[in-house]
C-alpha cells in the first residue's frame, strides 16, 4: 500500500494499538494532522498547551502501563513539551513523542520554528531519532515503541521533517526489529537467587523497600506473596505506593523525607534492606553519612546503573522485578521450613513501638480546614478506589500520606522531577483510560495555575475530573522550608491576587465550589462525586500555616526525623 509519510505515521500508531494521541498542531506537523483527519482509528486529543499533552499521555501511561503518545509541532511545540518529557524520564514512564520538524533542506538554517529537537531533548529521553527518509518512518516508530516500553521504560522522541511526511512510500509495518546495540534485560541467575534467599532468611531486622519499579513491572502480587511469606515489614517509596496495601499490618507506610517515623527508623536500624525497583534517591535516604549503619543491602533492579550508584550494595540482582520476585518466591517456598518468624519478633516489637508514636498525627480543628482532613475525607467518599493525581508540594505529600492506596497505577504524581502543573493534565489522561472511574486531582493554588488552561480540554472532551484544590494562599512547601530554614522570611511564597476559582471553573463550563468550613468538607465531596458527568473544581480554603510532618530535614538521617510539635515525640528527645 503506497501512502504518504503522514499516513504512515498514523497507520504505524494504529498498528501499535494506540487509541489516543495528545497533541497540538502547527506548521511542521500539518501533513500528519491532515492524515489524522482521514481516519478514525486513532483519536487525537487537542490540549491547550504542549506541556499538557505530555502530562496527559504520561497520566494515561501511569494509569494503564501502556505507552502514552504525544504529537507536537517543531520549535515551540517541542520546547513546550520538554518539561513533560523530562517528567516522564525521571519517573521511567513509557512515552513516544512525535515532533514535526522543518523541511530537511531547511534544517540548520535557523528556519521559522526550527529547533534541534534531538539535541534539546537528549538529556531527558531514553532515546531519540531524527527520521531522514520516508521509508524509515515505520521502522523508526516501531523502534521507538520498543525502546520506550522495554527494560527500564522511558520517553522516546521521534523528530520528523515536514517534507518527509509528504513523500510517498510502501507501508509495511515491521513485525520485529533488531537493535544490536540496545541492551537486553538481564536474566537473574539462580545462584544470585539462592544467595539472596540465604541472606533474607537469616535477617533479624529486615525491611522490604520497594519503588516505582514494582509498579512498572506489574509485580504487586509477587511482592505481596513475598512479604507475607516472610512476615517482614514493607515500606514503599512515593513512586511505589499501592504496590503493598496501605492497611496491611506488615506495611509501615511511605518512607523518605515525609515518610512515617516507623518506616525511616526501620531503614536506619535494619540489618538487611531488601530494595526492589527503588533507587536510593536522595529524598529517600536523607544524608548518606550514617545511612543504615548496620544494614546489608540486597538490591534488585532492572537498570544496572542504579546498583552501587548511591548506596554500596552487598548482593545485587539485575532483572525485571516481577521475574526476580517470582524466582525469590519459588526459592522461598522450597525453603519454607527455614522461615523462622521468631527471628524477627524483637524487631516487630521495636517497630510497633515506633508505630505507636503515630507520626502522621495532626491537630484537628473545628474552625479551619486542615488539608489532611480533606484527603482523608476524599479517601472515605471514594472508598479508596479513586485514581488520584497530584501536583507538587505540600498537597502532594498529604495525598501520599493520607489517601490509602491498595493498588498500583492509582497514585499518579511527578516524583522525580517534581513538576508543578502535572496533576490536571495527568488526570485527563487517566480519565481517557478509565472513563467510569473516579479521578481526583489533588492540587494547590500554585500548581493548578501552571496548567489551568487544560480546563478547556476537559470541557471539550467531557472529562468529569474532580479537582481538589488545597488553597492555603501560599506556595506551601516553599513557605515551610522558609519557616524552618530561612528564619520565616517568606520570600515570594505568598500568592496574592488569586483568581476566584469558582468563577474560573464556571467560565470554563464546569462546576465550581468553595468550601471554607471543616464541617462542610465531607458533604461537599459527596455532592461533587455524585455529579458523575461534571468536572467539579473544589476550592478548599485551608489552614495557611499547616506543615507537612514528619520530616527528614536537609543534611539529616533517617533516625533524626522532626516530628510534629505538640504531638508524641520519641523517648529521650
Amino acid at each position: 500500500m503506497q501512502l504518504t509519510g503522514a499516513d504512515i505515521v498514523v497507520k504505524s500508531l494504529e498498528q501499535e494499538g494506540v487509541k489516543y494521541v495528545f497533541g497540538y498542531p502547527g506548521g511542521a506537523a500539518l501533513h500528519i494532522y491532515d492524515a489524522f483527519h482521514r481516519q478514525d482509528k486513532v483519536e487525537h486529543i487537542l490540549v491547550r498547551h504542549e506541556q499538557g499533552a505530555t502530562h496527559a499521555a504520561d497520566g494515561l501511561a501511569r494509569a494503564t502501563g501502556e505507552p502514552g503518545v504525544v504529537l507536537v509541532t517543531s520549535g515551540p511545540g517541542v520546547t513546550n513539551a520538554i518539561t513533560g518529557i523530562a517528567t516522564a524520564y525521571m519517573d521511567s514512564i513509557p512515552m513516544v513523542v512525535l515532533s514535526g520538524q522543518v523541511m530537511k533542506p531547511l534544517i540548520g538554517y535557523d528556519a521559522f520554528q526550527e529547533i534541534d529537537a534531538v539535541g534539546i531533548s537528549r538529556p531527558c529521553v531514553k532515546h531519540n531519532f531524527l527520521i531522514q527518509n520516508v521509508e524509515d518512518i515505520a521502522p523508526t516508530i516501531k523502534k521507538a515503541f520498543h525502546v520506550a516500553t522495554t527494560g527500564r521504560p522511558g520517553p522516546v522522541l521521534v523528530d520528523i521533517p515536514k517534507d518527509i511526511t509528504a513523500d510517498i512510500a510502501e507501508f509495511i509495518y515491521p513485525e520485529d526489529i533488531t537493535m544490536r546495540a540496545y541492551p537486553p534485560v538481564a536474566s537473574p541467575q539462580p545462584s544470585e537467587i539462592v544467595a539472596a534467599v540465604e541472606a533474607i532468611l537469616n535477617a533479624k531486622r529486615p525491611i522490604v523497600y520497594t519503588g516505582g519499579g514494582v509498579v512498572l513491572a506489574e509485580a504487586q502480587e509477587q511482592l505481596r506473596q513475598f512479604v507475607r511469606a516472610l512476615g517482614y515489614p514493607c515500606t514503599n517509596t512515593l513512586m511505589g505506593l499501592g504496590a503493598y496495601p496501605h492497611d496491611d499490618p506488615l506495611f509501615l507506610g511511605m518512607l523518605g523525607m515525609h515518610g512515617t517515623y516507623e518506616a525511616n527508623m526501620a531503614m536506619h536500624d535494619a540489618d538487611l534492606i531488601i530494595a526492589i525497583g527503588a533507587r536510593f534517591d536522595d529524598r529517600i535516604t536523607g544524608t548518606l553519612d550514617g545511612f543504615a549503619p548496620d544494614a546489608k543491602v540486597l538490591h534488585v533492579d532492572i537498570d544496572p546503573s542504579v546498583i552501587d550508584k548511591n548506596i554500596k550494595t552487598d548482593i545485587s540482582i539485575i532483572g525485571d522485578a516481577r521475574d526476580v520476585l517470582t524466582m525469590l518466591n519459588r526459592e522461598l517456598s522450597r525453603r519454607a521450613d527455614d522461615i523462622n518468624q521468631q527471628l524477627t519478633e524483637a524487631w516487630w516489637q521495636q517497630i510497633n513501638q515506633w508505630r505507636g508514636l503515630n507520626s502522621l498525627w495532626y491537630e484537628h480543628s473545628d474552625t479551619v480546614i486542615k488539608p489532611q482532613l480533606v484527603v482523608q475525607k476524599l479517601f472515605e467518599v471514594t472508598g479508596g478506589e479513586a485514581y488520584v493525581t497530584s501536583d507538587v508540594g505540600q498537597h502532594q505529600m498529604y495525598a501520599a500520606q493520607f489517601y490509602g492506596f491498595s493498588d498500583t497505577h492509582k497514585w499518579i504524581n511527578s516524583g522525580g522531577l517534581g513538576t508543578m502543573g502535572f496533576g490536571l493534565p495527568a488526570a485527563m489522561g487517566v480519565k481517557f483510560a478509565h472513563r467510569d472511574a473516579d479521578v481526583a486531582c489533588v492540587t494547590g493554588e500554585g500548581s493548578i495555575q501552571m496548567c489551568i488552561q487544560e480546563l478547556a480540554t476537559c470541557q471539550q472532551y467531557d472529562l468529569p475530573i474532580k479537582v481538589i484544590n488545597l488553597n492555603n494562599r501560599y506556595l506551601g512547601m516553599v513557605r515551610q522550608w522558609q519557616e524552618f530554614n530561612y528564619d520565616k522570611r517568606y520570600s515570594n511564597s505568598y500568592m496574592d491576587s488569586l483568581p476566584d476559582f469558582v468563577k474560573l471553573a464556571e467560565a470554563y463550563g464546569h462546576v465550581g465550589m468553595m468550601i471554607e468550613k471543616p464541617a462542610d468538607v465531607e458533604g461537599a465531596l459527596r455532592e461533587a462525586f455524585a455529579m458523575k458527568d461534571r468536572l467539579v473544581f473544589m476550592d478548599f480554603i485551608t489552614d495557611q500555616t499547616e506543615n507537612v510532618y514528619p520530616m527528614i530535614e536537609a543534611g539529616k538521617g533517617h533516625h533524626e526525623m522532626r516530628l510534629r510539635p505538640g504531638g508524641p515525640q520519641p523517648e529521650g528527645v
Partner: protein
Amino acid sequence: MRHIISVLLENESGALSRVAGLFSARGYNIDTLTVAPTNDPTLSRLTISTVGDDRKIDQIEKQLGKLVDVAALQDITINRHLEREVVLVKLLANQQSKPKLDRLVAAFNGKLIDINDTQFILELSGSSEKVDELLKALVDFEIIEVARSGVTGMTSTERALTVEQP
C-alpha cells in the same frame, strides 16, 4: 586513576553527542576523545580517557552501556593493553638549533615531516606519556602550534572488543 574506555558505537548521526552529553551531564571528565569508523562501516570506535575512582568508572561504564547506540565497551586499562597517540608539532625554523632538533627527534623515534625556510613540522606516535615528554623536551624551541590526536588503544590480550551477535 586514569582509565581508557573503548566504545563501539552505532555510526549514526547524533550518537557521538549522546556520549559527550552523558559525560557533561553527569559531571565526568573527558581528558581525551578519539573517534573514527572501524572496518565495519556501521560502527565507530571511540576511545575515551578519563580519570576517576573505581566507583566513578563503574558508573561511567554502566551509564555508557545504557545508551541505545553503544554496542560494546571495555575498560582497556584493567587489562594488558597498548595505547598510542599521534602529535604534530610546528616549530619556528632555526637552522642553528636544527642539529639539536634532529638528535631529539631521533631519540624520540619521531619524524620531521615538513621542512621549509620558516617552519618545521615534526610527528611522533607513542604513549601519551611519551608525547608529554617530547613536548617538555621541546621547551627550548619556539613552538607555533601543537596538535594531539588523543589516545587510542586496544588490549593486547585475547579479550577483543566486539559486538556480541544476538
